[in-house]
């Protein structure tokens, strides 16, 4: 019961942190535009406080860029155009979702490659182990 309560509290705290974004009084035309703004700025990095998104950060820098992004949305710019505008000034580092490029190949495929290598190692070890089944069964324990 106690554990369940703790879990519930943790889940509650997590939802709080997800919703905790800095609030600017930006005059959105409708909720759809506001949702689009929040979705876009959540994918962008605050360059000053690098582990926060532009949406979540309270830094002056983030406030200013939120304002700029808001203005560009009012001018009818697409998400793609806004991102390109930011990348031209702050490099792809500002994107939390890095583009697929030669410099990011290791980032995109490194982890799956290592995981795949691990799976292969496990399969090979298991096969070796099951072949002499009769001898394994007699062993008192496994040494690793």
């Amino acid at each position, binding site marked *: 019961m106690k554990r369940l309560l703790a879990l519930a509290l943790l889940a509650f705290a997590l939802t709080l942190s997800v919703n905790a974004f800095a609030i600017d009084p930006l005059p959105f035309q409708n909720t759809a535009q506001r949702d689009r703004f929040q979705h876009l700025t959540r994918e962008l990095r605050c*360059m*000053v406080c*690098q582990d926060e998104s532009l949406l979540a950060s309270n830094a*002056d*820098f983030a406030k*200013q*860029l939120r304002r*700029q992004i808001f203005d560009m949305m009012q001018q009818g710019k697409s998400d793609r155009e806004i991102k390109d505008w930011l*990348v*031209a*000034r*702050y*490099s792809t*580092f500002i994107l939390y979702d890095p583009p697929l490029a030669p410099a990011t190949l290791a980032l995109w495929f490194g982890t799956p490659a290592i995981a795949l290598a691990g799976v292969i190692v496990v399969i090979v070890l298991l096969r070796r*182990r099951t072949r002499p089944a009769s*001898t*394994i069964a007699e*062993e008192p324990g496994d*040494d*690793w």
Partner: protein
Amino acid sequence: MNEVARRPGGRFVPLAIFAALVVFFVIGLVWNQTHDARFVPSPLIDKPAPAFRLPRLENPTQFVTKADMLGKPYLINVFASWCFACGDEHPVLMAYRDKFGIPLIGYDYKDAPQDARAWLQRHGDPYHEVITDQSGDTAINFGVYGAPETYLIDAKGIIRYKHIGPLTPEVIAKDLEPKIHALAQEGT
């Protein structure tokens, strides 16, 4: 016959895996020690500096534009009176302002002009000219995200070098001065 006897050396496999992990951790540690994640290379290097039109600190009714500055290389140093690291950098600028051989333009970033004036009066003014960007909107076009930052702009208005963080004698000797000399060699 047990497994270890069947494959001599087999018991060292975990040790080898552990050693490989240690190597990765050490590489990660060394990388973190030698690379500062705050300093992101600017995509604007070798691209034209953004157009700007900013008031002078000493006389806000007069403006300095990018076009005014064309024809000779110059340095832009982004600073602010509220910027702590700028205070660290300041003595270095005072010492080097006449050694650069090109104008050093102060770019007062998101600062109240009276605060900037008081700051320069108190510490000394290393700049040949100071322009002010109170809103910080022009600074976004330069990709400024923290002061101090220093830009080397050539006679054609191209950004040739950018340093994020305080200039130090080491950085100046190793990076900035060679770039300035290279510009002089080009004759631009």
